[in-house]
């Protein structure tokens, strides 16, 4: 059985099934490595159907957001760019700029400038 948890000398590694957690393990076989330079934390996600301010767990930084707008036509969701957004350390404000815009999806990532 593989040794899937490594915690020594200030480093934590968790590996995927069948792989020993050790510093030389290639990244694609890891679930987590404390030596990674940045992470995969998702602070918030969702979709809104009108101009909204979404509040999330307050952070010690202003995070990064992926935002995509859609309008519904003929049972398909077409990309619509007519929206704007801004971030603080605890909220994401999304503004709808077009009456055709039906939905804006967002993911707030644990990354910052």
């Amino acid at each position, binding site marked *: 059985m593989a040794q899937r948890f490594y915690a020594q000398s200030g480093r934590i590694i968790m590996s995927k099934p069948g792989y020993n957690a050790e510093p030389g393990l290639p990244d*694609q076989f890891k679930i987590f490595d404390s030596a990674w330079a940045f992470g995969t934390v998702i602070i918030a996600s969702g979709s809104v159907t009108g101009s909204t301010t979404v509040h999330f767990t307050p952070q010690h930084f202003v995070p990064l957001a992926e935002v995509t707008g859609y309008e519904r036509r003929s049972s398909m969701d077409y990309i619509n760019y007519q929206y704007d957004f801004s971030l603080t350390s605890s909220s994401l404000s999304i503004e709808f700029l077009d009456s055709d815009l039906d939905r804006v999806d967002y993911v707030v990532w644990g*990354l910052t*400038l």
Partner: protein
Amino acid sequence: MTERTRIGTLFGTPGIYVSQPGDNVAAPTRPFLLDSRCDVLEIHTYGRVSLPRISENAGISVFQRSLGFPPLGYVPLFTYAVVMNDSQEIFQPPTGFQIGGSSPFFPQDQAATISDGGLLYQVQIPGGNRNLDLWYVIYRNPRNPTTLPPSGTERVFIGNDAGTFKMRVSKSGFTARHANRDQCVIHEDKQPLIPVVSGVVSLGASAQVDVGTGIGFAFPPKMLNSGNIRMRLNLGSGVIRFYNNSTPRTIRYAIYNLP
């Protein structure tokens, strides 16, 4: 040595926290690598498939692909991109495509329709047939997740539980030993994205800027940036091109490999 791991209370909330290398977890200046107050994107399925032309009208070609995936019981988060130009360049929507010349073309009609078990993507581009691929990732994360209130349940378990190895950090309200992978931030069966490279770049007004990562990609990766700037990646050279059609700005970009 800098304290980087906290299993206990931080910011008034019990949990497990791991800071970035060199950053003090008790007084952090950068985002955490692991924060049990938050979630992580987990991959349900992903792939790269051909994106065929299905029709042409008045010089506009319609490229469309629909695909199914094992139903999740909810509409998931997803991401998608188009791979084109001799299969060497990936353009991540919402974006334009560089289909000739130096200026990107922005499709007037580009659709991505997701359900709990299928994805349909369509884009309309002037001209004849092209060799396009659709790249997609379907996550196990619901598009509209439930917000979990803080709780005092056992949130961390690493070890042998009745003959089964478990390595878990559960979400609020779930006992780590009994939680499934969707109820955990860390779980022995997780399929997370793999961080590859990140950086900061300054972009002039209405400028195209190339940034070399020095890394080639055998399979298209996940890309994002803090400005929602349109971007493409050359898979062979690892050069990212940013298309800033607005005022000067400084952004962070990040690239993640799929497992």
